[in-house]
């Protein structure tokens, strides 16, 4: 490695640290992302041109084609995605990173089988190759499953005794990799079996985890991709890969725990606890007693018009209906009529922490209108009308008063303390986590059924006529 390349890698590493730090503050976040991106480009260019192997021009051309193809696909996907589909895309990108590490491990093992015994890699190198293949493969299929679940094209699947099976399979994978390392095996077939088993494990690992827990899983998988990148870095003695990967690994882990904390659950509970499933049926039956009060757009509009404080609670339903622009219009209209309107943002509302912030930012809702859970909860008793739009689990009182509920103990928005609650939902179906919500049967609650966008639009029309 040339001195210049080492210096470039050093600079890139510093940009990663500084960029990540800046990403953590609202004012500097965008610059931080660009700095880290610039560091990455610098490191990539350095890697391509500053090395000491003999590389024929044909390989260079192939490399250029690969870089161009990947960049175009990545750019196109990033520019085309709707803001509501952001979590899915992050998950998919993450899977590609894992797949890349997996393929690298595979090629390195293949090369190692083709050299003389004197040039064989040491056991520790083979161990890193195995780790790159297995962790990369697990993140790949895991991320793809997470993507499919967020996308709604895949339901939770729980095979009988899945926890036992998955754990046994994980132990088996570790034992098999260890065997391959110690036996110094040259057999590609065994490695293909390891690869296949890892891919299957990644799939099985994510399929039983409930949809509402997907953000935690994505964050965890993101952390794993970082670790697989770091492992490949050890393979090439490449510091920028090592440090960059580890940074992502540990930062991703902290983020994962932060998300678990927001839901008041442990990581073990998320991964091994069957969220939804059996518990749902038992609690569901008890809660459906009672009647639901329906309301109309004009009644709801009157309530809001004569309120002095209105709190909007957005959830994933808002994202699905693409209602972020009309909700902003409603908010502006009410504000003009002298109503004090704010949004209550639950940390895990939507499909990703901060999902609602991103969405509302897209429609130009101002920062100070978004109030976080701990600040809004004491204000609910003074709130005249709470308007819940497509949120469900984050306002479910079962989290406070039903110890048998799977979400028991999760901090929620205490909307039942408000004077009136208007809930917009498409139907009475339970939320993403599959849990009944007794809030809908609350005396103060009334339901405004319909697609969020059209329901809000009719509210606006009613308000215009007042």
């Amino acid at each position: 490695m040339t001195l210049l390349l080492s210096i470039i890698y050093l600079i890139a590493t510093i940009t990663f640290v500084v960029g990540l730090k800046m990403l953590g503050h609202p004012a500097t976040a965008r610059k931080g992302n660009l700095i880290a991106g610039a560091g990455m480009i610098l490191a990539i260019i350095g890697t391509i041109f500053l090395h000491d192997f003999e590389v024929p021009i044909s390989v260079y051309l192939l490399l250029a084609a690969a870089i161009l193809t990947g960049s175009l696909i990545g750019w196109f996907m990033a520019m085309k995605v709707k803001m509501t589909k952001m979590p899915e895309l992050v998950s998919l990108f993450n899977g590609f990173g894992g797949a890349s590490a997996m393929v690298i491990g595979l090629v390195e093992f293949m090369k190692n089988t083709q050299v003389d015994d004197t040039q064989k890699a040491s056991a520790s190198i083979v161990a890193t190759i195995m780790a790159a293949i297995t962790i990369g493969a697990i993140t790949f299929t895991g991320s793809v499953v997470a993507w499919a679940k967020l996308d709604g094209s895949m339901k939770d699947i729980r095979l009988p005794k899945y926890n036992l099976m998955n754990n046994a399979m994980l132990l088996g994978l570790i034992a098999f990799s260890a065997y391959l390392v110690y036996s110094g095996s040259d057999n590609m077939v065994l490695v293909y079996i390891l690869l296949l088993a890892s891919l299957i494990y990644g799939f099985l690992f994510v399929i039983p985890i409930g949809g509402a827990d997907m953000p935690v899983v994505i964050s965890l998988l993101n952390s794993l991709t970082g670790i697989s990148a770091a492992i490949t870095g050890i393979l090439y003695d490449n510091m920028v890969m090592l440090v960059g990967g580890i940074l992502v690994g540990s930062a991703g882990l902290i983020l994962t725990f932060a998300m678990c904390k927001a839901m008041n659950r442990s990581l073990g509970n998320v991964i091994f606890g069957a969220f939804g499933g059996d518990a749902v049926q038992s609690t569901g039956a008890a809660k459906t007693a009672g009647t639901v009060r329906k309301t109309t757009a004009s009644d709801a509009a009157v309530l809001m018009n004569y309120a002095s404080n209105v709190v909007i609670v957005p959830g994933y339903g808002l994202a699905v209906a693409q209602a972020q622009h009309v909700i902003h219009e409603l908010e502006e209209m009410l504000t003009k009529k002298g109503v004090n309107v704010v949004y209550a943002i639950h940390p895990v509302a939507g499909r990703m922490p901060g999902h609602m912030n991103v969405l509302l930012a897209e429609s130009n809702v101002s920062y100070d209108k978004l109030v976080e859970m701990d600040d809004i909860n004491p204000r609910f008793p003074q709130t005249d009308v709470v308007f819940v739009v497509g949120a469900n689990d984050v306002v479910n009182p079962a989290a406070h008063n039903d110890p048998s509920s799977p979400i028991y103990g999760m901090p929620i928005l205490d909307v039942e303390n408000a004077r009136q609650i208007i809930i917009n939902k498409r139907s009475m179906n339970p939320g993403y986590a599959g849990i009944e919500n007794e809030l809908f049967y609350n005396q103060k609650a009334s339901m405004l059924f319909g697609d969020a966008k059209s329901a809000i639009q009719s509210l606006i029309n009613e308000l215009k006529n007042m």
Partner: protein
Amino acid sequence: MNGLLEFISSNLQLIYILILAIFIGLELIKNVPTVLHTPLMSGANALSGVVIMGAILVMLNTDPDNYLGLALGFIAVVLGMINVVGGFAVTDRMLHMFKKKK
């Protein structure tokens, strides 16, 4: 056991870097406001694209006659590049929306 000790003594520097990097990562993300969780996850995801460096090295270091190796390297570079470019671009798009209403 001897192998492990040998690995530790010959890679001591690496292990130091590894441990310090873990702590830096943990410290960097502490106390980040919820608002930034999604962009941060997306940005960190883009950073995990450093794996592209490995993919490029695989391609450069593969014998031109090793077609399977080159093909796999090609796939690794494409996948890694999607992760890097897509990751940074989508994070920027997200953060751009935050900025508008200053």
